[in-house]
Protein backbone atom coordinates (compact mmCIF):
# COMPACT_ATOMS: atom_id res chain seq x y z
CA UNK A 1 0.00 0.00 0.00
CA UNK A 2 1.13 3.51 -0.83
CA UNK A 3 2.32 4.99 2.46
CA UNK A 4 1.55 8.57 1.44
CA UNK A 5 -1.90 7.62 0.22
CA UNK A 6 -2.46 5.69 3.39
CA UNK A 7 -1.41 8.71 5.47
CA UNK A 8 -3.73 10.99 3.51
CA UNK A 9 -6.65 8.66 3.98
CA UNK A 10 -5.94 8.43 7.69
CA UNK A 11 -5.78 12.21 7.97
CA UNK A 12 -9.05 12.55 6.10
CA UNK A 13 -10.66 9.87 8.21
CA UNK A 14 -9.56 11.58 11.41
CA UNK A 15 -10.75 14.96 10.16
CA UNK A 16 -14.14 13.45 9.43
CA UNK A 17 -14.27 11.98 12.91
CA UNK A 18 -14.23 8.45 11.57
CA UNK A 19 -12.31 5.73 13.36
CA UNK A 20 -9.04 5.12 11.58
CA UNK A 21 -9.47 1.42 10.81
CA UNK A 22 -8.16 -0.69 8.00
CA UNK A 23 -11.40 -0.75 6.03
CA UNK A 24 -11.52 2.86 4.83
CA UNK A 25 -7.82 2.72 3.88
CA UNK A 26 -8.31 -0.30 1.66
CA UNK A 27 -11.46 1.13 0.13
CA UNK A 28 -9.75 4.40 -0.71
CA UNK A 29 -6.76 2.60 -2.14
CA UNK A 30 -9.00 0.50 -4.35
CA UNK A 31 -10.97 3.42 -5.67
CA UNK A 32 -7.81 5.40 -6.43
CA UNK A 33 -6.29 2.37 -8.22
CA UNK A 34 -3.53 4.52 -9.69
CA UNK A 35 -0.45 3.15 -8.02
CA UNK A 36 1.03 0.26 -6.10
CA UNK A 37 3.72 0.85 -3.53
CA UNK A 38 5.80 -1.43 -1.32
CA UNK A 39 9.33 -1.61 0.05
CA UNK A 40 10.31 1.77 -1.33
CA UNK A 41 9.10 1.20 -4.89
CA UNK A 42 6.04 2.89 -6.34
CA UNK A 43 4.57 1.85 -9.67
CA UNK A 44 2.02 4.15 -11.28
CA UNK A 45 -0.64 3.15 -13.79
CA UNK A 46 0.01 4.22 -17.36
CA UNK A 47 -2.37 5.43 -20.04
CA UNK A 48 -0.77 6.52 -23.30
CA UNK A 49 -1.64 7.30 -26.90
CA UNK A 50 0.32 5.74 -29.72
CA UNK A 51 0.88 7.96 -32.77
CA UNK A 52 -1.26 7.62 -35.84
CA UNK A 53 0.19 5.31 -38.48
CA UNK A 54 -2.18 6.35 -41.25
CA UNK A 55 0.33 6.57 -44.09
CA UNK A 56 -1.22 5.08 -47.26
CA UNK A 57 0.20 4.03 -50.61
CA UNK A 58 -0.94 5.78 -53.78
CA UNK A 59 -0.74 5.21 -57.52
CA UNK A 60 -1.85 2.36 -59.76
CA UNK A 61 -2.38 -0.84 -57.78
CA UNK A 62 -2.12 0.87 -54.38
CA UNK A 63 -5.62 -0.15 -53.30
CA UNK A 64 -4.66 -3.81 -53.12
CA UNK A 65 -1.77 -2.99 -50.76
CA UNK A 66 -3.70 -0.50 -48.66
CA UNK A 67 -6.67 -2.84 -48.24
CA UNK A 68 -4.75 -6.02 -47.50
CA UNK A 69 -1.48 -5.08 -45.80
CA UNK A 70 -2.02 -2.07 -43.58
CA UNK A 71 -4.51 -3.68 -41.19
CA UNK A 72 -1.66 -5.45 -39.39
CA UNK A 73 1.33 -3.16 -39.93
CA UNK A 74 2.13 0.34 -41.09
CA UNK A 75 3.59 1.25 -44.47
CA UNK A 76 7.06 1.64 -42.94
CA UNK A 77 7.43 -2.13 -42.77
CA UNK A 78 7.33 -2.22 -46.57
CA UNK A 79 9.18 1.01 -47.35
CA UNK A 80 12.24 0.05 -45.30
CA UNK A 81 12.77 -3.28 -47.07
CA UNK A 82 15.70 -3.68 -49.45
CA UNK A 83 15.01 -4.16 -53.14
CA UNK A 84 13.67 -7.67 -53.61
CA UNK A 85 12.75 -9.56 -56.78
CA UNK A 86 9.13 -10.48 -57.47
CA UNK A 87 9.55 -14.04 -56.15
CA UNK A 88 10.79 -12.75 -52.80
CA UNK A 89 7.79 -10.43 -52.43
CA UNK A 90 5.52 -13.30 -53.44
CA UNK A 91 7.03 -15.36 -50.62
CA UNK A 92 6.53 -12.51 -48.13
CA UNK A 93 2.86 -12.15 -49.07
CA UNK A 94 2.36 -15.92 -48.73
CA UNK A 95 4.06 -15.85 -45.32
CA UNK A 96 1.76 -13.05 -44.17
CA UNK A 97 -1.28 -15.02 -45.33
CA UNK A 98 -0.40 -18.53 -44.21
CA UNK A 99 1.72 -17.99 -41.14
CA UNK A 100 0.40 -14.73 -39.75
CA UNK A 101 -3.18 -15.29 -40.98
CA UNK A 102 -3.40 -11.90 -42.69
CA UNK A 103 -6.87 -11.67 -44.26
CA UNK A 104 -5.48 -11.10 -47.75
CA UNK A 105 -7.95 -11.56 -50.56
CA UNK A 106 -6.47 -14.23 -52.83
CA UNK A 107 -7.49 -12.46 -56.03
CA UNK A 108 -5.54 -9.37 -54.90
CA UNK A 109 -2.21 -11.21 -54.53
CA UNK A 110 -0.89 -10.59 -58.07
CA UNK A 111 -1.66 -6.88 -57.78
CA UNK A 112 -0.01 -6.69 -54.34
CA UNK A 113 3.14 -8.45 -55.55
CA UNK A 114 3.29 -6.30 -58.70
CA UNK A 115 3.06 -3.14 -56.64
CA UNK A 116 5.70 -4.22 -54.10
CA UNK A 117 8.13 -5.46 -56.75
CA UNK A 118 7.63 -2.21 -58.64
CA UNK A 119 8.49 0.12 -55.75
CA UNK A 120 11.24 2.49 -56.90
CA UNK A 121 14.73 1.58 -55.77
Amino acid at each position, binding site marked *: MDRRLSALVRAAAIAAGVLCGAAPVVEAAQSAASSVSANGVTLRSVNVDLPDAGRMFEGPGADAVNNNCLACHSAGMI*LTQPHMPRAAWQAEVEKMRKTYKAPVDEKDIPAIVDYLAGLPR
Partner: protein
Amino acid sequence: MTRRAASGLSRRRFLEAAGVFALLPPASPAMADALVNLGLPGGPSERSITTAFPEKGRMILQRSRAPMLETPFEAFDRGVFTPNDQFFVRWHWAGIPTEVDVAAFKLTVRGEVNRTLSLSMADLLAMPRVELAAVNQCSGNSRGLFEPRVPGGQWGNGAMGNARWTGVRLRDVLDRAGVKAGAVAARFKGLDEPSVDTAPTFMKSLDVDRARNGEVMLAYLMNGEQLPLLNGFPLRLIVPGWYATYWVKMLNDIEVLSAPDDNYWMKTAYRIPDTPHASVKPGEKGVATVPISVMGPRSFFTNLTDGATVKAGAPLPVRGIAFGGDCGVATVELSEDGGGTWRAAALGPDEGAYGFRRWSGEVAAPRPGTLALSARCANVKGEAQPAEPNWNPAGFMRNVIESVRLNVA
Protein backbone atom coordinates in the same frame (compact mmCIF):
# COMPACT_ATOMS: atom_id res chain seq x y z
CA MET B 1 28.03 10.44 -55.36
CA THR B 2 28.07 6.75 -54.63
CA ARG B 3 25.37 4.49 -55.92
CA ARG B 4 24.34 3.67 -52.36
CA ALA B 5 23.74 7.29 -51.46
CA ALA B 6 22.07 8.02 -54.78
CA SER B 7 19.61 5.17 -54.48
CA GLY B 8 18.66 6.12 -50.92
CA LEU B 9 17.99 9.71 -51.84
CA SER B 10 16.27 9.07 -55.12
CA ARG B 11 13.94 6.55 -53.54
CA ARG B 12 12.80 8.92 -50.86
CA ARG B 13 12.54 11.91 -53.18
CA PHE B 14 10.69 9.82 -55.73
CA LEU B 15 8.23 8.54 -53.14
CA GLU B 16 7.50 12.04 -51.92
CA ALA B 17 7.48 13.81 -55.28
CA ALA B 18 5.41 11.17 -57.03
CA GLY B 19 3.02 10.90 -54.13
CA VAL B 20 3.48 7.15 -53.92
CA PHE B 21 2.18 7.45 -50.42
CA ALA B 22 0.02 10.13 -48.95
CA LEU B 23 -0.08 11.25 -45.36
CA LEU B 24 -3.62 10.61 -44.22
CA PRO B 25 -4.21 12.28 -41.88
CA PRO B 26 -1.09 14.44 -41.78
CA ALA B 27 1.46 12.78 -39.53
CA SER B 28 2.50 14.62 -36.41
CA PRO B 29 5.25 17.17 -37.14
CA ALA B 30 7.40 15.23 -34.71
CA MET B 31 7.21 12.17 -36.94
CA ALA B 32 9.74 13.44 -39.47
CA ASP B 33 11.73 16.32 -38.10
CA ALA B 34 15.11 14.86 -39.04
CA LEU B 35 16.68 12.03 -40.95
CA VAL B 36 19.43 9.60 -40.09
CA ASN B 37 21.33 7.43 -42.57
CA LEU B 38 21.97 3.93 -41.24
CA GLY B 39 24.46 3.06 -44.01
CA LEU B 40 22.57 -0.03 -45.12
CA PRO B 41 24.12 -1.50 -48.29
CA GLY B 42 21.91 -0.87 -51.33
CA GLY B 43 19.41 1.15 -49.28
CA PRO B 44 16.88 2.32 -48.46
CA SER B 45 19.05 3.64 -45.67
CA GLU B 46 17.41 6.82 -44.44
CA ARG B 47 15.05 6.81 -41.47
CA SER B 48 13.11 9.54 -39.71
CA ILE B 49 13.88 10.59 -36.18
CA THR B 50 10.67 10.57 -34.18
CA THR B 51 9.69 12.00 -30.81
CA ALA B 52 6.03 11.00 -31.21
CA PHE B 53 6.03 7.88 -29.05
CA PRO B 54 4.92 7.94 -25.40
CA GLU B 55 7.65 7.94 -22.73
CA LYS B 56 10.23 8.05 -25.53
CA GLY B 57 12.66 10.74 -26.63
CA ARG B 58 14.46 10.88 -29.97
CA MET B 59 14.20 7.48 -31.66
CA ILE B 60 14.88 6.17 -35.14
CA LEU B 61 11.54 5.24 -36.71
CA GLN B 62 11.68 1.81 -38.30
CA ARG B 63 7.94 1.08 -38.20
CA SER B 64 5.17 2.98 -36.45
CA ARG B 65 2.77 0.03 -36.02
CA ALA B 66 3.49 -2.38 -34.42
CA PRO B 67 6.20 -0.06 -33.10
CA MET B 68 9.83 -0.69 -34.00
CA LEU B 69 12.07 2.11 -32.74
CA GLU B 70 15.85 2.06 -32.88
CA THR B 71 18.24 3.77 -30.47
CA PRO B 72 20.22 6.59 -32.14
CA PHE B 73 23.81 5.44 -31.85
CA GLU B 74 25.09 8.60 -30.17
CA ALA B 75 23.12 7.54 -27.08
CA PHE B 76 25.67 4.75 -26.55
CA ASP B 77 28.51 7.28 -26.26
CA ARG B 78 26.98 8.90 -23.18
CA GLY B 79 27.36 5.96 -20.83
CA VAL B 80 27.01 2.23 -20.47
CA PHE B 81 23.39 2.43 -19.31
CA THR B 82 20.98 3.23 -22.13
CA PRO B 83 18.38 5.81 -21.08
CA ASN B 84 14.85 4.38 -20.79
CA ASP B 85 13.50 7.05 -23.12
CA GLN B 86 15.94 6.00 -25.84
CA PHE B 87 15.88 2.23 -25.28
CA PHE B 88 14.92 0.37 -28.47
CA VAL B 89 11.37 -0.88 -28.96
CA ARG B 90 10.15 -3.88 -30.92
CA TRP B 91 6.66 -5.41 -30.93
CA HIS B 92 5.43 -8.27 -33.07
CA TRP B 93 1.70 -7.54 -32.95
CA ALA B 94 -0.10 -4.21 -33.02
CA GLY B 95 -2.55 -5.28 -30.30
CA ILE B 96 -0.70 -3.53 -27.48
CA PRO B 97 -2.72 -2.27 -24.50
CA THR B 98 -2.22 1.48 -24.20
CA GLU B 99 -3.54 1.49 -20.64
CA VAL B 100 -2.27 -0.62 -17.75
CA ASP B 101 -3.89 -0.37 -14.32
CA VAL B 102 -1.05 -1.39 -12.09
CA ALA B 103 -3.35 -2.06 -9.14
CA ALA B 104 -5.48 -4.50 -11.15
CA PHE B 105 -2.63 -6.20 -13.03
CA LYS B 106 -2.09 -9.89 -12.22
CA LEU B 107 0.60 -12.38 -13.15
CA THR B 108 -0.77 -15.90 -13.44
CA VAL B 109 1.42 -18.96 -12.83
CA ARG B 110 -0.29 -22.15 -13.89
CA GLY B 111 0.13 -25.53 -15.57
CA GLU B 112 2.40 -28.18 -14.06
CA VAL B 113 2.48 -26.56 -10.63
CA ASN B 114 1.15 -27.54 -7.23
CA ARG B 115 -0.59 -24.21 -6.71
CA THR B 116 -1.90 -21.88 -9.40
CA LEU B 117 -0.88 -18.34 -8.51
CA SER B 118 -2.40 -14.97 -9.31
CA LEU B 119 0.19 -12.44 -8.16
CA SER B 120 -0.45 -8.71 -7.92
CA MET B 121 2.33 -6.17 -8.38
CA ALA B 122 2.10 -5.62 -4.61
CA ASP B 123 2.79 -9.34 -4.12
CA LEU B 124 5.84 -9.10 -6.38
CA LEU B 125 7.13 -5.93 -4.70
CA ALA B 126 6.96 -7.76 -1.37
CA MET B 127 9.17 -10.63 -2.56
CA PRO B 128 12.99 -10.67 -2.22
CA ARG B 129 14.44 -8.11 -4.63
CA VAL B 130 17.35 -8.67 -7.02
CA GLU B 131 19.13 -6.37 -9.44
CA LEU B 132 21.51 -6.82 -12.35
CA ALA B 133 22.79 -5.05 -15.44
CA ALA B 134 22.10 -6.83 -18.70
CA VAL B 135 22.14 -6.12 -22.42
CA ASN B 136 18.85 -6.57 -24.22
CA GLN B 137 19.58 -7.14 -27.92
CA CYS B 138 17.17 -8.00 -30.71
CA SER B 139 17.99 -11.26 -32.50
CA GLY B 140 17.95 -9.23 -35.72
CA ASN B 141 20.03 -6.30 -34.51
CA SER B 142 22.13 -5.11 -37.51
CA ARG B 143 20.02 -7.14 -39.98
CA GLY B 144 20.07 -4.24 -42.43
CA LEU B 145 23.85 -4.71 -42.78
CA PHE B 146 23.57 -8.30 -44.06
CA GLU B 147 24.86 -8.89 -47.59
CA PRO B 148 23.06 -10.21 -49.50
CA ARG B 149 20.20 -8.36 -47.83
CA VAL B 150 17.38 -10.32 -46.20
CA PRO B 151 13.75 -9.33 -45.48
CA GLY B 152 12.66 -8.39 -41.96
CA GLY B 153 13.10 -5.40 -39.68
CA GLN B 154 15.90 -3.40 -41.31
CA TRP B 155 17.81 -2.40 -38.18
CA GLY B 156 21.16 -0.69 -38.02
CA ASN B 157 23.21 -1.44 -34.89
CA GLY B 158 20.84 0.25 -32.45
CA ALA B 159 18.37 -2.57 -31.65
CA MET B 160 20.14 -3.10 -28.35
CA GLY B 161 20.47 -1.46 -24.96
CA ASN B 162 21.83 -2.01 -21.49
CA ALA B 163 19.86 -1.36 -18.31
CA ARG B 164 20.00 -2.09 -14.62
CA TRP B 165 17.00 -4.36 -14.05
CA THR B 166 15.31 -4.69 -10.65
CA GLY B 167 12.74 -7.29 -9.78
CA VAL B 168 12.30 -10.82 -8.46
CA ARG B 169 13.91 -14.10 -9.36
CA LEU B 170 11.79 -16.24 -11.65
CA ARG B 171 12.93 -19.16 -9.50
CA ASP B 172 11.32 -17.64 -6.41
CA VAL B 173 8.03 -17.20 -8.26
CA LEU B 174 8.13 -20.75 -9.65
CA ASP B 175 9.03 -22.19 -6.25
CA ARG B 176 6.08 -20.40 -4.70
CA ALA B 177 3.84 -22.20 -7.19
CA GLY B 178 5.74 -25.47 -6.78
CA VAL B 179 6.93 -26.88 -10.11
CA LYS B 180 5.88 -30.53 -10.48
CA ALA B 181 8.49 -33.21 -11.07
CA GLY B 182 7.52 -33.89 -14.69
CA ALA B 183 7.73 -30.25 -15.85
CA VAL B 184 10.15 -29.52 -18.70
CA ALA B 185 9.58 -25.90 -19.70
CA ALA B 186 8.00 -22.63 -18.66
CA ARG B 187 6.17 -20.61 -21.30
CA PHE B 188 5.75 -16.85 -21.10
CA LYS B 189 3.05 -14.62 -22.57
CA GLY B 190 2.35 -10.90 -22.33
CA LEU B 191 -0.71 -8.68 -22.69
CA ASP B 192 -0.15 -8.05 -26.41
CA GLU B 193 -2.44 -9.79 -28.89
CA PRO B 194 -2.28 -10.64 -32.60
CA SER B 195 -4.13 -8.46 -35.08
CA VAL B 196 -6.06 -11.54 -36.27
CA ASP B 197 -7.62 -14.00 -33.80
CA THR B 198 -6.27 -17.08 -35.55
CA ALA B 199 -2.69 -15.78 -35.79
CA PRO B 200 -0.08 -17.16 -33.38
CA THR B 201 -0.02 -15.35 -30.04
CA PHE B 202 3.53 -14.29 -29.15
CA MET B 203 4.90 -16.70 -26.53
CA LYS B 204 8.42 -17.88 -25.67
CA SER B 205 9.61 -20.63 -23.40
CA LEU B 206 12.67 -21.65 -21.41
CA ASP B 207 13.69 -25.07 -20.15
CA VAL B 208 12.81 -25.46 -16.48
CA ASP B 209 16.49 -25.60 -15.49
CA ARG B 210 17.20 -22.26 -17.15
CA ALA B 211 14.01 -20.76 -15.80
CA ARG B 212 15.12 -21.78 -12.31
CA ASN B 213 18.81 -20.78 -12.65
CA GLY B 214 18.46 -17.85 -10.24
CA GLU B 215 19.51 -15.24 -12.81
CA VAL B 216 16.40 -15.14 -14.97
CA MET B 217 14.18 -12.52 -13.40
CA LEU B 218 10.93 -10.61 -13.65
CA ALA B 219 11.77 -6.89 -13.72
CA TYR B 220 9.52 -4.06 -12.57
CA LEU B 221 12.26 -1.40 -12.61
CA MET B 222 14.59 -0.42 -15.45
CA ASN B 223 17.45 1.90 -14.52
CA GLY B 224 15.64 2.57 -11.24
CA GLU B 225 12.32 3.62 -12.79
CA GLN B 226 9.22 1.77 -13.87
CA LEU B 227 9.50 0.45 -17.43
CA PRO B 228 8.14 2.60 -20.27
CA LEU B 229 4.95 0.97 -21.53
CA LEU B 230 6.62 0.28 -24.87
CA ASN B 231 9.46 -1.56 -23.09
CA GLY B 232 7.03 -3.83 -21.26
CA PHE B 233 5.42 -2.06 -18.28
CA PRO B 234 4.63 -3.27 -15.68
CA LEU B 235 6.65 -6.50 -15.77
CA ARG B 236 9.22 -7.95 -18.15
CA LEU B 237 11.08 -11.24 -18.28
CA ILE B 238 14.87 -10.72 -18.16
CA VAL B 239 17.03 -13.53 -19.55
CA PRO B 240 20.64 -12.36 -19.07
CA GLY B 241 22.92 -13.29 -21.96
CA TRP B 242 20.08 -14.38 -24.24
CA TYR B 243 18.54 -12.51 -27.15
CA ALA B 244 15.63 -10.16 -26.52
CA THR B 245 13.06 -12.44 -28.13
CA TYR B 246 12.88 -14.25 -24.77
CA TRP B 247 12.47 -11.06 -22.74
CA VAL B 248 8.66 -11.13 -22.88
CA LYS B 249 7.11 -7.71 -22.28
CA MET B 250 3.97 -6.96 -20.22
CA LEU B 251 4.41 -10.47 -18.84
CA ASN B 252 1.13 -11.67 -17.33
CA ASP B 253 1.09 -15.41 -17.86
CA ILE B 254 3.54 -18.20 -17.05
CA GLU B 255 2.50 -21.72 -18.00
CA VAL B 256 4.65 -24.60 -16.80
CA LEU B 257 4.63 -27.34 -19.45
CA SER B 258 5.00 -31.12 -19.22
CA ALA B 259 6.23 -31.37 -22.84
CA PRO B 260 8.56 -29.24 -24.99
CA ASP B 261 6.90 -26.10 -26.32
CA ASP B 262 5.85 -26.50 -29.95
CA ASN B 263 4.26 -23.08 -30.35
CA TYR B 264 5.11 -21.20 -33.56
CA TRP B 265 7.51 -18.73 -31.92
CA MET B 266 9.72 -21.59 -30.66
CA LYS B 267 9.23 -24.31 -33.26
CA THR B 268 9.26 -22.23 -36.47
CA ALA B 269 10.29 -18.64 -35.84
CA TYR B 270 13.51 -17.44 -34.22
CA ARG B 271 15.41 -20.53 -35.39
CA ILE B 272 19.07 -20.35 -36.40
CA PRO B 273 21.26 -22.73 -38.41
CA ASP B 274 23.00 -25.14 -36.05
CA THR B 275 26.41 -24.04 -37.39
CA PRO B 276 29.29 -21.86 -36.10
CA HIS B 277 28.02 -18.24 -35.81
CA ALA B 278 24.68 -19.51 -37.15
CA SER B 279 26.18 -18.99 -40.59
CA VAL B 280 25.28 -20.61 -43.90
CA LYS B 281 25.91 -19.81 -47.55
CA PRO B 282 23.12 -17.86 -49.26
CA GLY B 283 20.77 -20.38 -50.85
CA GLU B 284 22.11 -23.32 -48.84
CA LYS B 285 19.32 -25.78 -47.99
CA GLY B 286 18.76 -28.64 -45.59
CA VAL B 287 20.70 -27.21 -42.62
CA ALA B 288 19.41 -28.30 -39.19
CA THR B 289 18.12 -25.45 -37.04
CA VAL B 290 17.83 -24.78 -33.31
CA PRO B 291 16.06 -22.04 -31.35
CA ILE B 292 18.19 -18.91 -31.04
CA SER B 293 19.58 -18.47 -27.52
CA VAL B 294 22.87 -16.95 -26.29
CA MET B 295 24.46 -13.80 -27.66
CA GLY B 296 28.06 -13.55 -28.81
CA PRO B 297 30.57 -10.80 -28.00
CA ARG B 298 30.34 -7.42 -29.76
CA SER B 299 32.16 -4.10 -29.61
CA PHE B 300 31.36 -0.76 -31.20
CA PHE B 301 32.94 2.65 -31.69
CA THR B 302 30.76 5.31 -30.10
CA ASN B 303 32.76 8.56 -30.58
CA LEU B 304 33.72 8.03 -34.22
CA THR B 305 31.48 7.42 -37.20
CA ASP B 306 32.41 5.91 -40.53
CA GLY B 307 33.52 8.58 -42.97
CA ALA B 308 34.25 11.24 -40.33
CA THR B 309 37.18 13.63 -40.74
CA VAL B 310 39.74 13.90 -37.94
CA LYS B 311 42.78 16.10 -37.42
CA ALA B 312 46.19 14.94 -38.61
CA GLY B 313 49.00 14.82 -36.06
CA ALA B 314 46.78 15.36 -33.03
CA PRO B 315 46.07 12.62 -30.46
CA LEU B 316 42.78 10.98 -31.42
CA PRO B 317 40.73 9.63 -28.54
CA VAL B 318 38.86 6.46 -29.45
CA ARG B 319 36.15 4.94 -27.28
CA GLY B 320 33.21 2.63 -27.41
CA ILE B 321 31.18 -0.07 -25.73
CA ALA B 322 31.49 -3.84 -25.69
CA PHE B 323 29.68 -6.78 -24.23
CA GLY B 324 30.64 -10.42 -23.87
CA GLY B 325 27.31 -12.00 -24.77
CA ASP B 326 26.41 -14.57 -22.12
CA CYS B 327 29.47 -13.78 -19.98
CA GLY B 328 31.82 -10.91 -19.22
CA VAL B 329 34.25 -9.03 -21.47
CA ALA B 330 37.83 -10.33 -21.29
CA THR B 331 39.50 -7.97 -23.76
CA VAL B 332 38.78 -5.30 -26.32
CA GLU B 333 41.53 -4.77 -28.88
CA LEU B 334 42.13 -2.08 -31.48
CA SER B 335 43.72 -2.36 -34.90
CA GLU B 336 44.95 0.48 -37.13
CA ASP B 337 45.96 -1.78 -40.01
CA GLY B 338 42.81 -3.63 -40.99
CA GLY B 339 43.26 -6.41 -38.45
CA GLY B 340 46.94 -7.17 -39.06
CA THR B 341 48.06 -6.20 -35.58
CA TRP B 342 46.05 -5.59 -32.44
CA ARG B 343 46.67 -3.80 -29.14
CA ALA B 344 44.61 -3.81 -25.98
CA ALA B 345 42.13 -1.04 -25.26
CA ALA B 346 41.58 0.08 -21.66
CA LEU B 347 38.41 -1.25 -20.05
CA GLY B 348 36.09 0.88 -17.92
CA PRO B 349 34.39 -0.22 -14.68
CA ASP B 350 32.81 -3.67 -14.63
CA GLU B 351 29.10 -3.09 -13.96
CA GLY B 352 28.24 -6.78 -14.28
CA ALA B 353 29.03 -9.65 -16.62
CA TYR B 354 25.93 -9.20 -18.79
CA GLY B 355 26.13 -5.44 -19.31
CA PHE B 356 27.95 -3.01 -21.58
CA ARG B 357 31.59 -2.28 -20.75
CA ARG B 358 33.23 1.00 -21.71
CA TRP B 359 36.52 0.74 -23.59
CA SER B 360 38.94 3.45 -24.68
CA GLY B 361 42.21 4.02 -26.46
CA GLU B 362 44.10 6.58 -28.49
CA VAL B 363 45.71 6.92 -31.87
CA ALA B 364 48.82 8.97 -31.05
CA ALA B 365 49.33 10.95 -34.27
CA PRO B 366 47.18 9.97 -37.25
CA ARG B 367 48.90 10.63 -40.59
CA PRO B 368 47.07 12.45 -43.41
CA GLY B 369 45.07 10.12 -45.61
CA THR B 370 42.69 7.34 -44.69
CA LEU B 371 42.73 5.68 -41.28
CA ALA B 372 40.85 2.40 -40.84
CA LEU B 373 40.21 1.43 -37.23
CA SER B 374 38.81 -1.89 -36.05
CA ALA B 375 37.71 -3.03 -32.60
CA ARG B 376 37.20 -6.59 -31.45
CA CYS B 377 35.97 -8.08 -28.20
CA ALA B 378 36.74 -11.48 -26.71
CA ASN B 379 34.68 -12.75 -23.80
CA VAL B 380 35.84 -14.59 -20.68
CA LYS B 381 34.85 -17.92 -22.26
CA GLY B 382 37.43 -17.26 -24.99
CA GLU B 383 34.99 -16.49 -27.77
CA ALA B 384 36.06 -13.60 -30.03
CA GLN B 385 34.21 -11.64 -32.66
CA PRO B 386 34.68 -13.15 -36.14
CA ALA B 387 36.58 -11.26 -38.86
CA GLU B 388 34.05 -12.29 -41.49
CA PRO B 389 30.35 -11.46 -41.19
CA ASN B 390 27.98 -14.37 -40.65
CA TRP B 391 24.98 -14.86 -42.92
CA ASN B 392 21.63 -16.61 -42.50
CA PRO B 393 18.27 -16.02 -44.20
CA ALA B 394 16.63 -14.54 -41.09
CA GLY B 395 19.39 -11.98 -40.48
CA PHE B 396 20.17 -13.13 -36.93
CA MET B 397 23.21 -12.95 -34.66
CA ARG B 398 25.48 -10.53 -36.50
CA ASN B 399 28.62 -9.92 -34.42
CA VAL B 400 31.39 -9.32 -36.95
CA ILE B 401 34.36 -7.09 -35.99
CA GLU B 402 33.34 -3.46 -36.52
CA SER B 403 35.47 -0.96 -38.42
CA VAL B 404 35.38 2.76 -39.14
CA ARG B 405 37.20 4.52 -41.98
CA LEU B 406 38.29 8.04 -41.15
CA ASN B 407 39.61 10.87 -43.31
CA VAL B 408 42.69 12.36 -41.67
CA ALA B 409 43.41 15.93 -42.73
